[in-house]
Structures are given as C-alpha cells and as structure tokens.
C-alpha cells in the first residue's frame, strides 16, 4: 500500500539520531512549556524560529512540531494535577480530570490522557499520510476564488472558538485583517499605514503579534492575579487503569479521535474546538450524564484524544494548501519560507523527504511523549511547585530575548509590548485575541486572492458564487453564520465556555 511505503520512507528520515534528538528536544520543550502557565507553544516556537534557520528544514520542522503537540500533553498534566490548564485545549480536561485527582485517581487520569493521546496521535498521523496526498490532488483545482472562499470559511469558523459575542469576534477578525495590511502592498508597491516609520515599512511580524497578544497579555493578567498552585497529589501512584476504567475509556477515546481528526482539518478548527466538542458529545451520549464534572473518565479520555488528533490533522491544510489554521501553523510556514520552501500541493512531490519525514516524526514523537510523561510525572510535579512569582520574570526575559532574536531590532520588543497591553485591555472587554491573529495572517492572502479573482472575472463578484467549489465553500460559510446566530447555539456556547472557567 502506498501509505505504508511512504511512511517507511519517512521513518527512514525521522529515525536518524540527529532528527530523533531534535524531535526529543522539541517534545521535551513542548511538555515543559505546556506545563508552565503563562507561556505556550506559540511563544516558544517564535523564540526558537531563529534556531531552526541553522538546522535543515526537516529537522527544524520536526522540532517545532514536537513542541506543538508536546504542549498538548503538558497542558493536560497540569489540568489534572492542579486544575490549571497549561493550554486552552486542556480546559475541558480540568472538569473531570481534576475531580479524579481529588478522588485519588490522578494516576488513572494521567494514564488515560497519555494513552488516549498516543492512540489519537497515531491515528491522526495515519490520516495525514493517507489524506494529504488526496487533498493535494484536489488542491490543484483550487483557484483564487476558491482560496478566498476557503479563508472566509476559516475565519467564520474561528468565531466558533471565541467566547463572547459573535459581533465582537467579527470585529476582531476585521481588525486583524487591517493590521495585516500594514506594510508594503505587493501589488502596487505602495507603503500602507506605515506612518513614515521605517520599522513599520514591512508591517508587523506574526511572531511579534502572537507573542504580544497571547504571551505578554496573559503575563499582564497573571501579574495582578498569580495563578494559584495547589498540587493535589504530591506523590502520584497507581499509574495504570483497571478493567472497568479501560472499558469505559476506550470507546470514548475512539469517539474523541474521530471528532478531533475531523475538526482539526477545518481552518479555524483545531485542538481547542475539538476538545470542547468531544466533551459535549460524550456528555450527550452518556447514559449517566450527571457523572460528568464529578470524575467521569470519559470526560478525560475523549477530549484528550480529540485535542491530540486535531493537533496532528491541523497540519494538513497547512502542508497541502499552504493555509494556516492557527497562529502556530503560520509560524511553521514562516519556518519553511526561510528555507525557500513554499507549503502547498507541490510539497509532497518536490520535498518528499520533508513531508514524510515530518509525518513519521509525529509517530516517533508521540511515543517519546508517553515515555517522557508517565515516568517523569514526579519531575513535572516538582516543577509545578515553583511559585509563579519566581517564574514570571524568567518567562518575561525569555520572551524579550526571543523577540529581539527575530530581526535583531528592539522595535519588535516594544511592538510586542504594545500588542500585549492592547490584548490585555481587549480581553478585559471580553474580546478574544485568537480571531485577530487569524485575520492578521489570512488578511493579506485574502486580499491577494480576491484581487486575482476579480481581475480574472473583470470585476465581477459573482465569480465567488458561480464556480462550484467556491460556491460550496460560501454556502458552508453562510450556514455556519446562521448556526452561530441561532439562539440555541448561542446559549450552548456560553454554557461550554463558562463551564470551562471552573
């Protein structure tokens, strides 16, 4: 079978000591970053982008990818042990996972999270291996109108992720698009919105915006209310599942994997949405829904599987279409462009060792993570006991150095600070930063595709609705908007998100 051949080829690339070593560093860093509050995979990947310049593209991507899904594992560990999700995709895990820890079943929760994630990771990887080449084939049918419509769909999809009002999320997207248009317009060569500043001639970098809006703004929030650490289990014993737990968790893992694999594909989808959706589905399907929130093992198994599956499959739109589904993926694209590699349908044929090597490394990475996490739990617990007041200055310093290292200009540090304060104020006004970043990344691409589409159609907007694929995408966007506006869905979004605040 084609897939097996390709995977074996990829394993040949991934299992070299060099790539295994950097993969290990990636997942280790990822877990560390996932465990620590206030710093996430986006900030870390931004900081390590310069390092990947010195590595071969495959090795660099393997390491960065490891950081990404490693952080999912790390975030679940803290969610279970101290009710503090290290990553937003682990918010749902706190609901039942922490309850289980309080009931003395922390070991079981951790095991189910790790093994569920491993299973989902493997399935996700196989999905990429099987699905991506097919999608790349379809991608050749994508012209400018189709790309534009796909991006609109993705942006509207990201509203699903944002809490609070739909209108505010839409404005955040629009604002992101505007900030993304700062810089030189490729088409006309005009400098847009740079206000005469030479530092702004090229606009803001993704990493600056991401680190400011996510990293620094969270640091600001944490400064006034440092996260409380009450580690429930100083000594975690019982790292295994009994028969009952296994039979309860297994179907949940399967369902979570399916949900995550699918949702991760959608631009604007991803790990967070998948974990929420999986939890909601489990609760719905359960014969005893009142057990949820009280330590139901399915409530840990399914979301954990879902977020890991989504973390894998979210690479697909990035690798095959060149469209980033999340800020992290945009950074990955950045890492590739530095080496003059353009993600898109041709990547499979032009750089097969990069593509299949990366995919195979996800298999090895997931295995390494299970080996890392379960025995090293005690180490992570120790780390969690470091008071936040000691961590914050260190994190701040690393962020500052990382920002400087992007383009060796102190302007970037100050710009990120600006975005940090901006993000902090907006979050206090109940606006979510994620749609902004997505708009920022996709905006310029949307403009270019719209321009091309309209040039070819001689200024006729209907081209977006008459070409078949584009029409389907636009209809899907419309349906999604209707769903979002429907009052019953509005209430349910509020429910899911306020539950997550527990």
């Amino acid at each position, binding site marked *: 079978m084609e897939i097996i051949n390709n995977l074996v080829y990829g394993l040949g690339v991934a299992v070299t000591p060099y790539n295994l070593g950097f993969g290990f560093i990636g997942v280790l860093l990822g877990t560390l970053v996932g465990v620590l509050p206030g710093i996430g995979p986006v900030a870390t990947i931004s900081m390590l982008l*310069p*390092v990947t310049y010195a590595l071969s593209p495959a090795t660099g991507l393997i390491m960065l990818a490891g950081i990404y899904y490693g952080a999912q594992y790390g975030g679940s560990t803290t969610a279970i042990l101290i009710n503090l999700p290290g990553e937003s995709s682990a918010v749902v895990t706190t609901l039942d996972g922490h309850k289980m820890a309080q009931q003395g079943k922390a070991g079981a929760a951790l095991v189910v999270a790790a093994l569920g994630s491993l299973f989902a990771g493997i399935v996700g990887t196989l999905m990429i291996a099987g699905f991506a080449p097919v999608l790349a084939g379809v991608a050749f049918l994508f012209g400018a109108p189709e790309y534009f419509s796909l991006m609109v769909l993705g942006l509207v999809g990201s509203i699903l992720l944002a809490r609070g*009002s739909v*209108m*505010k999320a*839409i*404005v955040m997207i*629009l*604002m992101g*698009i*505007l900030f993304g*248009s700062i810089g030189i*317009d490729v*088409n*006309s060569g*005009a400098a*847009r*919105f740079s206000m005469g500043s030479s530092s702004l001639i090229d606009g803001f970098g993704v990493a600056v915006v991401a680190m400011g809006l996510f990293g*620094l703004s969270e*640091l*600001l929030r944490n*400064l*006034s209310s*440092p996260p409380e650490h009450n580690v429930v289990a100083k000594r975690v014993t019982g790292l295994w599942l009994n028969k009952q737990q296994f039979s309860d968790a297994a179907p949940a893992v399967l369902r979570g994997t399916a949900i995550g694999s699918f949702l991760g594909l959608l631009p604007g989808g991803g790990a967070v949405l998948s974990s929420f959706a999986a939890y909601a589905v489990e609760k719905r399907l359960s014969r005893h829904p009142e057990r949820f929130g009280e330590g139901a093992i399915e409530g840990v198994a399914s979301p954990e599987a879902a977020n890991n599956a989504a973390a894998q499959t979210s690479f697909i739109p990035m690798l095959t279409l060149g469209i980033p589904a999340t800020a992290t993926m945009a950074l990955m694209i950045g890492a590739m462009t530095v080496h003059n590699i353009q993600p898109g349908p041709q990547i499979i044929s032009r750089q097969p060792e990069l593509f299949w090597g990366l995919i195979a490394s996800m298999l090895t990475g997931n295995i390494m993570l299970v080996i890392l996490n379960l025995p090293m739990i005690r180490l992570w617990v120790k780390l969690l006991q470091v008071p*936040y*007041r*000691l961590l*914050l*200055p*260190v994190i*701040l*310093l690393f962020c*500052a*150095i990382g920002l*400087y*290292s992007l383009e*060796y200009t*102190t302007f970037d*540090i*100050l710009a990120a*600070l600006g975005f*940090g*304060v901006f993000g*902090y*104020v*907006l979050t*206090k*006004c*109940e*606006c979510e930063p994620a749609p902004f970043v997505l708009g920022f990344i996709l905006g310029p691409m*949307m*403009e270019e595709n*719209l*321009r091309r589409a*309209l*040039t070819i159609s*001689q*200024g*006729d*907007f209907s081209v977006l609705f008459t070409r078949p694929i584009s029409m389907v995408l636009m209809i899907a966007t419309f349906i999604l908007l209707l769903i979002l506006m429907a009052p019953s869905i509005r209430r349910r979004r509020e429910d899911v998100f306020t539950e997550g605040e527990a």
Partner: protein
Amino acid sequence: MTGLNDTNSTELSFRNLLNADTIAGLIFFCIGGFFTTSSFTLRFGSPMDMGPAFFPRSIAIIMMLFALAIIMRGIQQARAGKGSRVRIEILSILQVSAAIIFFALTLRWLGLILSGMGLMMIAGFSVKGARWHEVMFLAVTVAVTSGFLFIYGLGIQAPLLPRF
C-alpha cells in the same frame, strides 16, 4: 442572570456607561476610523482593478459599522443595568512596561546580562509576595546563564557585556 460583574443599576452615569461593550466599541471605532482616514492617500480603484486602498478601506468601513452596533448594544445594556464592568490594573501595565522598555533601551548599550538583570528585577519586585533575596538571586543567575545560552549557545547577535 446577574453576575459579579454586572453594574446593577440603571442610571446612565458615566461610570455605568463604560462597560465592556461600549469601551470595546469605542476602541474599534477609533481604529477603524484611523485606517479609513489613513487610506485616503492611497488609490481606491475599482473591483476589476483593486488599488492599495480598496481592501483595507472597505474592511475598515465595515468595522466602523459593527463598532457602532456594539456601542449601541453597550448603551442598551447600561440602561438595563446589565453591562460588564471593566477592571484594568494600570499598575500591572506600568510594571511590565517598565521592565520591557528598560530592557529594550539598554540591551545594545549595557549588554544582555545587565539589561536582563534590570528586567528581571523590575518584574520580580512587581509580583505579589516578592522577596528581596529571591529576586536578586534569580536575576543574577538567570541573566548570566541566558546570556551565555543565547549568545554563545544559540548564536544570537547581541552584546553580552557593556561597551565602555
């Protein structure tokens, strides 16, 4: 449902009017306005021949319309006593800004170790429950280690020590 954050009174006082929606809406309106006016120097063009201003100005105008809607909703909420209060910790903003601005301004001049120490001291003393000896110890050790790690280990181009 009334929550902790609700303003809980229906008088249209200035204080109540400044709820999450109105503040956000005002910010959005101003930013949209800025982009719209800044785009006047650029050519708009037509759908067939989009100028540099076409896309941004259109987006900015749509954004301003939404912003107005959000402001109106905010006013409506204030009237019904249901707006969410916005609590911004100015002190935190000042503290983090001081630390970062210090670092940004002194990095090239004092070198990474000293400016890093400065950042960590400012930040360290800003957190609740800071202890003198912890902050200083951490500032020195982490700044020095990072200096060597980033400059020699990862090859970042920055001065390690001050130039005298």
